[in-house]
C-alpha cells in the first residue's frame, strides 16, 4: 500500500470526494479514478463503463471497477453526456492500476456547465481530504 507521500496527484486535474479525477480535453473532459483509489482497490480485473450518448447528473453512478475481491461504484464528477469511453480497458483493465491519469482514463464527457469543473477539488484540497481519511 502506498504512503500518502507516494500517491501520484498531478496538478493538471481536479478531484472529487469519491476519488475520481477530471481534466479538460478540448471541449470535453476526461474522467478517471485517482492513484489513491486504484491503490486502495488493488488489481482491477474488470471495468464496466456506460455507452457513448448516455447522460448523467453530477454524482450519478456511471459504472463499476472490479478487483479480484470486490466491486466498487464509479461516480460522475460533473453532469454531462458521454462522448467517448476508453475501449482499451476492456482487454487491459490493469491500465487503471498502472496509469490511472493517462492510459487508464475511463470516459470523455461533454459538460452542460463547464464552470462545474472549478467546483472540484484542486490537488491541495484533495490531499488535505486524504490526510483527513488517514487519521
Amino acid at each position, binding site marked *: *500500500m502506498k504512503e500518502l507521500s507516494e500517491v501520484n496527484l498531478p496538478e493538471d486535474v481536479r478531484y472529487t470526494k469519491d476519488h475520481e479525477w477530471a481534466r479538460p480535453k478540448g471541449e470535453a473532459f476526461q474522467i478517471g479514478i485517482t492513484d489513491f483509489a486504484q491503490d486502495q482497490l*488493488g*488489481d482491477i*480485473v*474488470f471495468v*464496466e463503463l456506460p455507452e457513448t450518448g448516455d447522460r448523467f447528473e453530477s454524482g450519478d*453512478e456511471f459504472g*463499476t471497477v*472490479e*478487483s*479480484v*475481491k*470486490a*466491486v466498487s*461504484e464509479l461516480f460522475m464528477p460533473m453532469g454531462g453526456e458521454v462522448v467517448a469511453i476508453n475501449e482499451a480497458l476492456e482487454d487491459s483493465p490493469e491500465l487503471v492500476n498502472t496509469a490511472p491519469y493517462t492510459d487508464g482514463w475511463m470516459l470523455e464527457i461533454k459538460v452542460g456547465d463547464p464552470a462545474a469543473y472549478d467546483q472540484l477539488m484542486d490537488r491541495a484540497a484533495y490531499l488535505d481530504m486524504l490526510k483527513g481519511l488517514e487519521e
Partner: protein
Amino acid sequence: MTSLKTSLHAWHTGHGARMGLFGGYDMPLWYASAKDEHLAVLNHAGIFDTSHMAVVLVEGPGALDLLQFCFTNDLTACLGPRKASLRPGRAVYGAFLDAQGHVVDDAIVFMLAADAFMVVVNAGMGPAVAAHLVQHGGAYAARVTDLSGQVGKMDVQGPMAARMLYDVLAEPETVFDAMPYFSFKGGFTDAIPSWGAVVTRQGVPLLLSRTGYTGEFGFELFAGPEQIVALWEAIVAAGASLGAVPCGLAARDSLRAGAGLPLSHQDIGAWPFCRHPWPFALPYRPGTQEFSKPFLGDTALQTCQGPYTYPFIGRDLRKVTLPAEVLDASGRSIGDVLTCVTDMAVGRHEGRVFSIRSPDRPKDFRGGGLCCGFVRVADPLPLDAPLALKDKRRRIDVRIVKDIRPDRTARQPIHTLLQPKEE
C-alpha cells in the same frame, strides 16, 4: 479495539502489504497484486502467513473418544477409499457442531499419538473450540489445551513448494519419502512424539504437513512463533528464483473458493452442516446415507431438510457484492450468496472450463477469470441449473456446478514436483 498481530506483522507492513482485519488479526490482504499472487500459486508457489489460525491440543486416554463424539469425521474410518483408521502422522478434515447440527468451526485433526491430537481451527476460534470440547467432553478422560498465539504457522502452496523446502530442510529426501496428501511429520515442541523428524538447515524443528487450503500442492509448516520470521525469510529466499511470492488473504480466499473449499462462518455456520458439497467431512458409511458413528449434532443432520449449498460458476469474471440474493430461472428469490469471488486462473473455451494449468488446455489459453463461489438455497437444485445472482447494483447469470477450478494439484505426489519443470 486493538487488533492481534502475528509474528510476521512487521515483515508484512515493511514489505508494503495492504493490511486488513481478519478473525481479530491485522493480516496482509495482498502485497503488490492479489491477482498475481493467485496466479503464482498455480504457476510457481505462494507463501502465506497463517499464524492467525489456532491450535488446540486434545490429550489423554479419552482423547479419541472425545473427538469421536465432537468431530464430524470418523477418526476410526476416514483414510482413503477403504476408510482406514486415522493413525499417527495422518490428518483429516471435519467440523465441530452443536446439538442443532450448526457449525462451531471447521478443523483439521492431526493424530500425534494414540492418545494425542492436534486440532487446527480458524483465527480467533481457539478459545471457543476449546470451551466447546470441555463443555461436551466432560465424560471423557482428556485434557484440552488452547495454544492460540503459541504456535507459528505458514503455508507454502504451489508446484514449486517441494523444491523450495528441499533447499530449506536438513534432510529433505528422508522427509519427503512416503509423505502423501494429508500426512505430516515432525513437531514444533518436544512434547510431540515425532518431534525432530523435520528440522531446517538452520536447526529449527518443524511440524510439516501435506495440507493447505488453496487446492494446490503444498505444505503447512508449524513452528515456534519466535522461529517463524527466520523460517519465512529462508523460504522466501528459496522461492525467489522459482517465481514464488508472499501472498495475502485475498489470494487465499479466491484460491480456496476456486478449489471448492468453504470458509468457516461464511459458507458454513449457524445452520445445519448437511446438504452441502463437502460430504467427505461427514462419517458416511461408503455407499450409504448412514453415519458410521454417533456424534454431537448427528440427529439434527439426519432430519435436516436444508438449506442446500452448491458451488457455482459465472459467465465471466463479473461478481456480485454481498449481501446478494439467488434467483431461479423465473426470477423468484430462492436463497442467498455465501461467497462470490473471481478465480483468475480459470476461463472458458468452447463451453468448457480450463485452468491455466490444465494439461489439455488450449494452446495460448490465458484463463481470464471466472466468478465463482457458493449459494445457499431452500430446495435442491440439479447440476447445471441456471440461476441469477442479484445485488443492489447488478444481476449476473451463473450455473450450479460440481467443481470450480479443474486439474488442481493438491494430491500430486511429491516426487513428481521435485524435478525442474519443462518450461
